[in-house]
């Protein structure tokens, strides 16, 4: 199998996420479009939601503490990138970064970026798919520290295959 000429960047890091540098690394001479998603720590959550099967009310967050099963998380990031390339063959570069450690409101915690020659190639859908899959299969967890206590946030997704 010929190695892909297209860059795949991935990392679990305690460092700040640098969008400029990451975008540069996945921009080729043939690239004309990048769709980037970042998630940040919310200091205020106003929508009700569910964690550990239990509904939560609007609330405030002091900070989040992220933890990863690093070697498996890196392998699963590569799997997400592979799934993206299988679905959108036009995607050129892919960057996936998860920041871990103690992270305060307004801080970007996760990034996924996909590049392609043009914007109508599915590059937006590829980034959207990537963040959804990341949140399903990459083994990272966060503990939420609130003014009146702390709680592990647990996801909902149960994998059914490797």
């Amino acid at each position, binding site marked *: 199998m010929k190695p892909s000429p297209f860059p795949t960047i991935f990392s679990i890091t305690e460092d700040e996420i640098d969008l400029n540098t990451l975008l540069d690394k996945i921009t080729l001479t043939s690239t004309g479009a990048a769709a980037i998603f970042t*998630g940040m720590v919310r200091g205020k959550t106003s929508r009700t939601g569910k*964690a*550990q099967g239990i509904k939560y009310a609007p609330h405030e967050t002091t900070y989040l503490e*992220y*933890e*990863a*099963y690093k*070697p*498996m*998380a890196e*392998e699963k990031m590569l799997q997400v990138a592979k799934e993206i390339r299988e679905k959108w063959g036009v995607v050129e570069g892919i960057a996936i970064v*998860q920041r871990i450690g103690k992270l305060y409101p307004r801080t970007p*915690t*996760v990034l996924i970026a996909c590049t392609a020659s043009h914007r109508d190639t599915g590059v937006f859908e590829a980034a959207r798919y990537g*963040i959804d899959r*990341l*949140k*399903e*299969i*990459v*083994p*990272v*967890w*966060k*503990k939420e520290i609130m003014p009146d206590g702390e709680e*592990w*946030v*647990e*996801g*909902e*997704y*149960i*994998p059914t*295959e*490797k």
Partner: protein
Amino acid sequence: MNKINILFFATMRTRAKRSSLELEIKSDTNVAELKEIITAKIPALEASLHHTLVSINREYAFDEDIIPENAEIALFPPVSGG
């Protein structure tokens, strides 16, 4: 016998009050049987084991999967990164 290393993350780590455990198990032990062995050693995990995810050598694993030699096992709740 098969010597394996078990890692605990997030709520599993908090409840087990440890981040890893070395175990010797019989060859041909599967994931469901391993869960019972772990519960016997760490009863605090019993309540949460039914919705725990399990990985073998960094791949998701399921009840009927056999634990290979010297496997790196991990137990953790559904992921919540991002």
